[in-house]
């Protein structure tokens, strides 16, 4: 079949992330979607420095609030937000239940390659399902091509901690925190690090 039909609702996930590119088999641009209830963070705070991606966000349903470089953007259904600068920090929160944010990304002047971000969400799915060994195995594989992807490093740290490989977990976490400042507040509330809480706090101080 040279074409595929699906619907946003049909592509589900545990974490609110819909892996549309993987589901559809696209190879020319990144495309994913997030959904969640009122108050849910749909797009975690990040930039695209690692990928160089331009990103286009579309709100097809309900109502979100976005923030780009600290500036708030009201985003009811029908809003498109284009972030051309990969260095711009951006996040999005659902204001009402059932809010969806559809995202397309690629790097100008370069052929599309799968981003570490997408891999990180795939890892998170395995992690949330309790498949820590699988998540760690995929992380290690991904880090060969994406050694500076902090999101992959973070999930590798969580998975290692769940597998009681604590030295490994601390090493991954240190590398992630060096690359991305929001790792520290995220790690603070991550139960995977409870058995090594003191070491984690010392590391991220």
């Amino acid at each position, binding site marked *: 079949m040279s074409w595929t039909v699906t619907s946003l609702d049909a592509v589900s996930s545990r974490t609110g992330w819909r892996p549309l590119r993987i589901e559809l088999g696209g190879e020319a641009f990144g495309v994913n979607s997030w959904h969640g209830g009122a108050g849910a963070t749909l797009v975690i705070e990040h930039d695209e420095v690692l990928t160089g991606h331009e990103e286009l966000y579309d709100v*097809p349903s309900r109502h979100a609030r976005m923030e780009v470089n600290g500036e708030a953007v009201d985003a009811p259904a029908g809003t498109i937000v284009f972030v051309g600068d990969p260095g711009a920090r951006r996040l999005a929160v659902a204001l009402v239940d059932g809010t969806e944010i559809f995202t397309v990304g690629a790097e100008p002047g370069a052929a599309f390659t799968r981003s570490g971000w997408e891999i990180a969400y795939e890892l998170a799915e395995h992690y949330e399902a309790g498949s820590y060994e699988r998540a760690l195995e995929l992380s290690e594989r991904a880090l060969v091509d994406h050694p500076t992807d902090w999101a992959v490093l973070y999930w590798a740290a969580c998975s290692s901690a769940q597998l009681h490989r604590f030295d490994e977990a601390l090493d991954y976490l240190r590398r992630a925190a060096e690359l991305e400042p929001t790792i520290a507040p995220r790690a603070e509330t991550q139960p995977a690090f409870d058995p090594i809480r003191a070491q984690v706090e010392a590391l991220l101080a």
Partner: protein
Amino acid sequence: MSWTVRQIRDVPKTGPHWRSLRLELGVQAFGVNSTHGHAGDLIVLEHDESLTGYEELYVVLTGHASFEVNGEETDAPAGTLVFVHDAGARRRARALRDDTEILTIGAAPGEPFERSGWEYAYEVSSYVNAGDYGAGLERAREILLEYPYDWPVLYWAACCAARLGRRDESLELLQRAFELEPTVAQTAALQPAFDSIRGDVTAALA
């Protein structure tokens, strides 16, 4: 400003249905546009992407559409995603309800994004719709230096030439478009620009 916010409905249309989001937003990494129309409107013209090699993803944002890909029909209410990865697949979409909006994203796998001739064709068509045929033909000639096989640009250049009374040039451009894309014959049959040379057009595309 490193970022831009728009409401899709506020982005002006080029022609009756097309909103050139990529140009409006300044996107450089992928093609992105939107088409809007009411019940019965053909809002994605029948075409393939052989010239560009693009994969295309269509997202029905509002309303309700009916797609046809390689002759196979699919119902597409809001929220439907139609992904056509075979650049050679023929596709089109018709609005079944008023205020149907379809977002389209496209790019070629394994290659850096390049602006497609389609987008240029809409640019030329906007000159035609504004009655500025001389400027439209001039722009089309510039584009055709880089995209000599882009049939939508050839088609709109033919329209401009016909409006300017340049019969031979119009017929030559139209014939080149038709050789590349057979549906040009049906489109040309309804195009008022060719009324003054209707007999010649019919003969050329027979």
